[in-house]
């Protein structure tokens, strides 16, 4: 079915734009960039319709790495899970590409931006399509690279490049776990192919599988910004907003969820690892949500929200509700992409302003943006019948079955989510304008994607019933419908919304008063619990300074080189002692001759006479 065409189209776009882009007119760049992604989307649709998705469809292209018994092919495969991911990636991707035309219109490095985006699409599709862990890893690393490049898109800004580095390096920590997991998988199963590996999981020991599962979780934590590796994602907002929408909300960050779901045969045999996923997920969800409550940068709010929502997905996967996790992955892609794009539109309108304290009252000035974002907000808050409602309910139901405390924590988090999203919405669109720019509505190229996404955010949950679609794919036990739980969870969301309206819509002073009342706590949360500072002081600085002072100056220069040079110095010292002997005085030379002769005599005579005694 020529699956290779799906990722290769964006790659071609990347190459064309990347190599020639500087000389091409913008329209051509647009055509190439968007064309390639849209074509790819089309090809995905064509492929999926042409396939029987009940069995995995695998294509082998060439052997990538071979060494002895180790043989890794460049293989792609499509099954139901892949299908969902492909659609989400190419679909949302296409929308965001279109959106970017408007958003990036006035930015430098236009061609570069689209080239990177296309490259991202390529890697993301490879990630999704890969039929073995290593090909998945290719995409995994590749999207990380694109994320790095796009976060640091404004490369003359120190904070942007810092954020890029941070993203890449923290991801590397995750990859460390992922690659160790791969090594362990190969060591255990002798292959990295999904089919081969998963076919053998039943026979493998639980300990081994738990080990693999936990290592994979480390990888997933890095990519999907879970505790304790979430720190890069908020900083990643330094990139252009479409990037935040595409990579850091809709697609790339969900790769961890995808990978865990993909590895379900391993996890189902390793309950401890699954439990770990769920715990990490719920903890992240709650933790990030609390931070989100206090942020004032609009994108930061949504960033923490993303971290939090990813936590939900992990809870889903960890509780065995894989399809629920994927469901939430999809709906989240809709509404979070929309939130980001919407905030992008706001920022665009305000010529780059991101601080919500400088906004307000934009409802009239940019109505399209305002109302599309409202749709997204109610979706994420889990207002019944919106897309977020379905997926979140599914996850919470599974959590309840898994461990009730997770349900309760999840519900509280849902309330907080609703609160901070609407806090942001209110601060942005209600009240009076506090800034000093001249807000203007965005061009249609931006508004059309917003509109489409708004529709999807509201209706996506109903339109695409992922649990049903994936029912045959994942071996899930049925979660009984429990109306009470649904009620509790949705009311938590609605309470959050109301509270937000109450405080930020009508009486913003309450918020200030409250903040003043719990000043230390507020500052603590506002500063994200000082986690960045903690990492900086506990890990980064000691490593860097230790390397400089102890390893380089101390060990390398101070010890090894000192020994080496010291050998030289000692040789010279010996030389200078020998020079002293060479006094130039004939009589002293003669004395040495005498000394030497006596020595030789002593030795020879000594040996000869001891031989003689024999």
């Amino acid at each position, binding site marked *: 079915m020529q699956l290779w065409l799906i990722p290769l189209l964006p790659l071609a776009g990347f190459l064309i734009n990347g190599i020639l882009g500087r000389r091409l007119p913008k329209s051509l760049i647009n055509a190439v960039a968007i064309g390639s992604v849209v074509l790819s989307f089309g090809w995905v649709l064509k492929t999926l319709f042409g396939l029987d998705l009940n069995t995995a469809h695998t294509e082998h292209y060439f052997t990538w790495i071979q060494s002895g018994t180790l043989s890794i092919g460049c293989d792609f495969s499509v099954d139901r899970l892949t299908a969902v991911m492909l659609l989400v990636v190419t679909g949302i991707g296409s929308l965001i590409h279109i959106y970017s035309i408007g958003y990036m219109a006035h930015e430098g490095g236009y061609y570069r931006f689209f080239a990177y985006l296309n490259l991202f699409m390529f890697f993301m599709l490879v990630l999704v399509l890969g039929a073995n862990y290593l090909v998945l890893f290719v995409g995994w690393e590749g999207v990380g690279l694109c994320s790095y490049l796009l976060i640091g898109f404004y490369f003359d800004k120190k904070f942007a490049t810092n954020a890029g580095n941070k993203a890449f390096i923290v991801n590397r920590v995750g990859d460390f776990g992922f690659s160790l997991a791969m090594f362990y998988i190969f060591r255990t199963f002798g292959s990295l192919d999904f089919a081969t590996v998963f076919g053998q999981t039943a026979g493998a020991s639980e300990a081994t599988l738990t080990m693999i599962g936990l290592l994979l979780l480390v990888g997933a934590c890095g990519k999907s910004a879970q505790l304790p590796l979430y720190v890069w994602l908020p900083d990643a907002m330094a990139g252009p907003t479409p990037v935040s929408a595409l990579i850091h909300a809709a697609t790339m960050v969900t790769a961890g969820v995808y990978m865990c779901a993909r590895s379900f045969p391993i996890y189902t045999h390793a309950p401890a690892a699954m439990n770990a996923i769920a715990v990490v997920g719920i903890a992240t969800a709650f933790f990030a949500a609390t931070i989100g409550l206090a942020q004032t940068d609009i994108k930061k709010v949504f960033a923490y929200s993303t971290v939090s929502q990813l936590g939900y997905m992990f809870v889903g996967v960890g509780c065995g509700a894989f399809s629920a996790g994927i469901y939430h992955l999809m709906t989240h892609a809709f509404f979070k992409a929309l939130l980001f794009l919407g905030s992008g539109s706001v920022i665009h309108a305000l010529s780059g302003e991101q601080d919500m304290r400088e906004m307000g009252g934009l409802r009239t000035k940019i109505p399209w943006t305002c109302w599309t974002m409202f749709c997204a907000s109610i979706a994420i808050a889990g207002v019944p019948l919106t897309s977020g409602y379905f997926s979140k309910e599914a996850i919470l139901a599974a959590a309840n079955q898994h461990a009730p405390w997770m349900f309760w924590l999840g519900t509280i988090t849902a309330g907080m989510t609703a609160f901070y999203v609407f806090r942001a919405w209110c601060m942005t669109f209600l009240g009076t304008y506090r800034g000093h720019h001249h807000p203007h509505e965005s061009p249609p190229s931006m508004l059309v994607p917003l509109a489409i996404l708004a529709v999807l955010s509201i209706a996506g949950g109903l339109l695409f019933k992922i649990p049903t679609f994936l029912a045959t794919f994942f071996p899930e036990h049925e979660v009984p419908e429990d109306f009470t739980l649904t009620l509790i969870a949705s009311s938590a969301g609605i309470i959050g919304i109301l509270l937000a309206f109450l405080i930020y819509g009508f009486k913003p002073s309450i918020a200030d008063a409250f903040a003043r009342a719990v000043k230390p706590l507020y500052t603590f949360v506002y500063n994200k619990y000082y986690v960045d500072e903690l990492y900086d002081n506990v890990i980064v600085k000691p490593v860097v300074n230790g390397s400089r002072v102890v390893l380089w100056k101390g060990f390398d220069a101070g010890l090894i080189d000192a020994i080496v040079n010291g050998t030289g110095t000692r040789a010279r010292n010996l*030389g200078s002692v020998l020079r002293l002997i*060479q006094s130039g005085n*004939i009589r002293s030379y003669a004395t*040495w001759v005498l000394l030497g002769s006596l020595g030789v*005599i002593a030795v*020879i005579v000594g*040996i*000869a006479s001891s031989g003689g005694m024999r």
Partner: protein
Amino acid sequence: MHASAGFFSPVDLVRFLPEIILTVVGTFLMVLDPILHKRSSHAFGHLSLLALIAAMGGSIYAYTEPGKSFNDMLVVDGFATFFRVLVIGVGIFTVLLSYRFLEREDAETSEYHALLLFSVAGQCMMAASNDLIMIFIGLEISSISSYVLAGYLRDDKRSSESALKYFLLGSFATAFFLYGVALIYGSTGSVNLSEVRRIITGPDVPSPVFIGLAAALMFVGLGFKVSAAPFQMWAPDVYQGAPTPVAAFLSAGPKAAAFAIFLRIFTTAFEPMSIAWQPVVFGGAAVLSMTIGNFAALLQSNVKRMLAYSSIAHAGYLMVALTARDNGTPAAMFYLVAYAFMNIGAFAVVAHLSGKGERYQTLDDFAGLAQKQPLTAAMLTIFMLSLIGVPLTGGFFGKFYIFKAAIESKMVWLSVFGLLNSAVGAFYYLRVLVMMYMHEPSKASSEVEPLPWGLGTALVLPAIATLFLGIFPSWVLDFARSATLLK
């Protein structure tokens, strides 16, 4: 032996041919001195060159009649021929080196060349002697002419001091050697090496201790001549003070001859007795020589002096070969050839650069030579690399062969020590290269005159030979191996 015959046969004369040629021409030069005008001073050089070439031919011709002659005083064997050719070769290069030098220093040429020829003749005798008294006389002929040559620039303070030191200490050491000869005579009743060996291996073995005492005393004398530690003290002072061509000569010719004697006496004549102590004594001397030579050279700023220390170090390597006894003999022979070439070449460059009155001898004077005279610098590079022991040079193969012999004789520790020592040595040889290639030209190298033909030949030929020995060592090696001693 039919020693009763008081006279000698024509064969005896053939076997003594090189020495005859050299002494006759040497005398002839003295006679010629008043006849030839001083301006045509090159004539003496040409003549002695011819004489040396003839003597080389003579020594090869003599080898067509191998055997002992003059009542066993002399033996012409492969070994003797090898060393004769070697020392004559050294003589040839010394003559070539000296043309420009003598001209520059405005020195008498006839006596210089005569002395040189006599000295070479003495060394040839040493190489071919089979009798301690002949060895002694050959040694003295070689040494006394060397003393004079070292002090040849009699108005030069350094030269005369060098001569005095060489002379006094040399005589001092010779006295030890002589005492050793006396003790050998006393214990074996003969000073003929074949005889000595026969007696030592025979039924009436004299006291090994007494022989050992004699050997120790002789070791002092010979160790001095080869500048092996702990008798090396004179070498740096003498080499530094002596005129550079003479220093080149001293570091190669007498050394080679003295090693020939070492081999003849210690590994042949004393063989059954020396097995016990040779490794210790020679090994000890080797270790000391290598260490002292290499480490003291590290700090030298005068290149001649540095080369002197280097020659001490190389004596140490040769001592390693001697420690390895039979295995080491061909190795030592090969090494001496390689060493002679590279050392003469190195001294030739010093002679070339140092200018009138030998002003420029320090390392700094070599700065930038590569820019001013790339050919000279390239040649010196070859010599230095060979002295370091970099492959494809004679020096490397020599070292390789020596340490192979040492390991063969189960002296791995000595090899490791020696080779690590040569890594130390690499440092100071590299300094010369550093100076030549990596610094801006000094006054000396800016003023350096174009390469005269004699010096040029004495540079290029050894360079070629050094490379040749490194790439095709078989020639010399096979000869050295076949030229094992007549026992």
